């Protein structure tokens, strides 16, 4: 009986208690025929099969989002070289980098967790492709016009179609959470830096600054992943929510 309680506790870390209890109940019924080894083997199988997507999606989204952010800072955007765009002559570009990095985060996370047929994934993919084309080919008038027309079409479809409107709301909320989280992380980081390295001393940054930076990045990613997951569960799987349908 102890093994059932442990198994139920373990499953309840990943799902609702009632659902966990019903699965353990099923396994207990079969345990009488197949034995204790089969019981634990199946339980581990259930945990892995049901939940491998969530941690993988988080890690992959974190890597891709962070790589996009770092890569874009070294790329000329719409013909403006990175040296110019990086030294605050074009402050709006920092916002563009952040928005695009968050978009790639959503795209990676949604692709792994919900698959390519999911509306959030499809919208994130359409927006990512058009944003990437704007960034890398925006200096050519034809590409610029094509991207703008495409974005207008995506916006129109997102407004007219109920499911796509919900997907757009999910992406908008994750973008907002990412920006607010980023501002909050920058604020905490600056506070720490002011305390640890006073301006008068001009000392190099302590190693703890690196750890704090890593913690802030992980915290931001966790906030965005949670926002994406919660909003997806709430909006995409609950057809009774009225979004002007």
């Amino acid at each position, binding site marked *: 009986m102890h093994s059932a309680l442990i198994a139920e506790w373990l499953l309840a870390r990943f799902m609702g208690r009632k659902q966990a209890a*019903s*699965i353990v109940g099923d396994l207990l019924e079969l345990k009488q025929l197949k034995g204790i080894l089969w019981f634990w083997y199946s339980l581990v*199988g*259930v945990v892995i099969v049901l939940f491998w997507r969530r941690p993988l999606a988080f890690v992959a989204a974190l890597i891709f989002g962070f790589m996009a952010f770092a890569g874009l800072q070294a790329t000329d955007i719409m013909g403006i070289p990175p040296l110019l765009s990086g030294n605050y002559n074009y402050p709006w570009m920092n916002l563009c980098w952040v928005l695009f990095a968050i978009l790639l985060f959503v795209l990676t996370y949604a692709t792994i967790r919900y698959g390519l047929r999911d509306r959030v994934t499809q919208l994130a993919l359409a927006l990512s492709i058009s944003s990437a084309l704007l960034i890398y080919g925006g200096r050519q008038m034809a590409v610029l016009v094509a991207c703008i027309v495409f974005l207008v079409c995506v916006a129109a479809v997102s407004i007219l179609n109920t499911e796509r409107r919900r997907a757009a709301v999910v992406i908008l909320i994750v973008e907002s959470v990412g920006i607010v989280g980023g501002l909050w992380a920058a604020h905490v980081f600056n506070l720490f830096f002011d305390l640890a390295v006073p301006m008068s001393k001009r000392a190099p940054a302590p190693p703890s600054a690196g750890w704090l930076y890593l913690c802030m990045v992980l915290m931001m990613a966790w906030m965005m992943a949670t926002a994406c997951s919660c909003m997806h569960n709430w909006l995409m799987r609950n057809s009774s929510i009225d979004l002007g349908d």
Partner: protein
Amino acid sequence: MTHLISLGEFEQVVLLAILRLRDDAYGVTIRSEIAGCTGREATPGALYTTLDRMEEKGLIRSWLGDPTPQRGGRAKRYFGLTKTGRAALINAQRAYQSLLCGLDILGGANA
């Protein structure tokens, strides 16, 4: 406009097993029904993933039964098809039927 959800092969097997079991479709019985009819031992992980995914898609619905001593006081989670699930299954089976039509692979029944 009605949008029919396309079904995978294992999804159809699970839906048919639920239909056959009527009001007694829960994890253990669905698994044994599949094994009995197809000879295929579905792993619990694969079965619960499919059931969860189909419930998210609105193809099936679930409800909890009463706790039983045989299961250590744990309730059974029963499954049933929704209208969407039934329509998707009929659509998938019709596709199979039209593909089978004119073929003699089932001993002439569809020839």
